[in-house]
């Protein structure tokens, strides 16, 4: 480890240098936050859980096709008068979802989007695997996160 006297001296100095670095850092502001009491703001593009504006959805099932993990399942009905398709059952499997954001990009009417929820916890397994996207209050029990203001 030490072979010469000047090695010893330079070694000692290098240790002091290291101590100076950690000593300096002792007086810096902590970079962590007290998480469950203080929550970071989510960025504008943050991809949380998949969410849907049911009224905008035209049931084109593009999102279902592009989903890499088959997390979305859609059953459609056609209105006999107007010949318009509409979503009858639209379920989202939060367990399979890989949060890639392809579904929101592919949606032609911006009906599908990803909300800012990141604290995803459910009591029952089925609640997470079969989220009904057509229901308005599907994420009501999850705390609404803060969103960072986008600088312009």
């Amino acid at each position, binding site marked *: 480890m030490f072979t010469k006297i000047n090695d010893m001296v330079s070694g000692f100095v290098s240790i002091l240098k290291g101590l100076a670095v950690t000593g300096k850092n002792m007086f810096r502001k902590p970079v962590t936050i007290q998480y469950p009491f203080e929550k970071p703001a989510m960025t504008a593009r943050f991809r949380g859980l998949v969410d849907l504006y049911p009224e905008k959805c035209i049931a084109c099932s593009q999102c279902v*096709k*592009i*989903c*890499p*993990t*088959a997390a979305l399942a859609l059953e459609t009905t056609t209105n006999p008068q107007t010949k318009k398709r509409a979503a009858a059952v639209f379920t989202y499997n939060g367990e*399979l979802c890989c949060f890639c954001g392809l579904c929101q990009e592919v949606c032609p009417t911006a009906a599908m989007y990803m909300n800012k929820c990141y604290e995803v916890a459910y009591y029952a397994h089925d609640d997470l695997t079969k989220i009904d996207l057509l229901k308005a209050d599907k994420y009501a029990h999850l705390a609404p996160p803060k969103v960072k203001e986008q600088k312009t």
Partner: protein
Amino acid sequence: MEQTPGWVTLGKDALKPVVAFLKDGPGAFISLHCLTGVDRKEAVEVVYHLYSFEHRVMLTIKVILPNADLTIDSITPLWAAADWLEREVYDLLGVRFAGHPDLRRILNPDTWTDHPLRKDFKMAGVVPKPVK
């Protein structure tokens, strides 16, 4: 610099002497960059990517093995890098490398019996439908 557009197909007996020449000869293909296999249903292609630092050339060599006889000479004596890569090809595609010092499965458990990258491998679980 453009990499080589095509590839060379070799017979399985010719492979070992040819790559040995490529490695030690004037080509100086000293790096075995990649070794893999492709299941072509009736045959398995074993693909070698050799690289020459001196000439800045990537050479692709293919050896086509019919399903009936999936054995080929191991090139582990030439490149230590081939050791794990050949084990992987054996594990995933079932190609046997004659002369490999330790031909065991590498990614799958030793008790596994199938070769998952074969096209006839039956997959269980969720497979999303491909786009039409």
